[in-house]
């Protein structure tokens, strides 16, 4: 993929897969970078239907990620009828064409925020930061967290 800029930085020294070519449509040089195609993406949706059609947070790159990945697993706050799936101001509709599996997972974005569903949980984030310093405390945090946050989701 062509990208303007970046040349002059040390990334060109450590990323030998970045190439510079003559711009075929101009007289300048232009950088090419390889596309990133994830094998699997896990994406949390606002809503999904049972076929995998879904509405994703439009402030994030989730729709792009869904289109770029080989396999896409969607978790969703709500599973609804197809007729109830619409793009909204903050949501992008993504077709089931891109989706491999759907999981109902209310609270799946916690302790970060999820659109109009819930705000970030600052106390939990600070607790995580503290727990992340030690593997045992982290394991305990994750156990407690999954019990308290994923009501009926798993």
């Amino acid at each position, binding site marked *: 993929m062509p990208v303007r800029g970046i040349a002059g930085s040390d990334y060109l020294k450590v990323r030998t897969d970045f190439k510079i070519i003559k711009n075929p449509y101009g007289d300048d040089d232009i950088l090419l970078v390889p596309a990133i195609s994830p094998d699997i993406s896990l994406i949390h949706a606002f809503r999904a239907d049972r076929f995998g059609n879904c509405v994703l947070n439009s402030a*994030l790159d989730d729709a792009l990620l869904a289109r770029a990945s080989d396999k896409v697993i969607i978790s969703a706050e709500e599973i609804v009828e197809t007729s109830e799936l619409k793009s909204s101001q903050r949501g992008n509709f993504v077709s089931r064409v891109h989706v491999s599996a759907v999981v109902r997972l209310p609270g799946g974005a916690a302790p970060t925020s999820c659109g109009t569903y819930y705000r970030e949980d600052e106390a939990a984030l600070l607790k995580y930061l503290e727990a992340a310093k030690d593997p045992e405390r982290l394991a305990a945090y994750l156990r407690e967290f999954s019990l308290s946050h994923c009501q009926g989701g798993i």
Partner: protein
Amino acid sequence: MTHASLPYTTEELMATLIAREISNGETVAVGTFSPVPASGALLAKASHAPDSEVFIMGSRDWWPFSEGSLEFFSLAQRGRFDFFFLSGAQIDSRGNINLHAIGDYSRPKVRLPGGAGSAMLYCMVKKVILFKADHTVKSFVQTVDFISSAASSPPAHYRPGGLHQVITPLAVLVRSAATGSLELRSVHPGASAEDVRANTGFNLPDYSGGVTETAPPGPEELKLLRGPVRESVARIYPRFAGQAFRS
């Protein structure tokens, strides 16, 4: 670095300096972890630049895009941003910045979060302001250990943008068009040119047009910063808003 004797905080001063650079109608983009630039952009919008477009990553109120950062970076690739703000663990005498690794790249002393979009934005945004929460010999170095964003590009590459100013808690630096090196443009109240040089790890000549004392924030600027700007910034950076502004 805040001097208790001054009637404003360092963050209020730096945000004011950023705001003053923005002209009405210009498009201003603010990235992540940038509360001071966000405050500066919102101050400009609330005062002399009401027709400016302001985009702030991570904000619900100032992020109108429906394709996440894809749409944002596409605008940048088209050269549509007048201002962006970068910082770095290291900034060098030429204006290169390092957000990637301290020490040798293959065996770093400290592995930093990485440059993200900065290598591209530094080239494609017309005026990039570098801001730094500390001004020390460790952060202002002769040559950065790793150039994650280059102040200059090979001549064959299209580059419409680059460094506009460096704003620190002590001073404003600019890049000399003649030598390509940073020069001292103005010194903030409470500091001296000697202080700035003693805390800079490279030779810092005076700006060819002369060094001035930075004009401090005026009453109207402080009123807006402590009122509507603080309120708006608190929705993105609640902790910062609680500490950076004086009551």
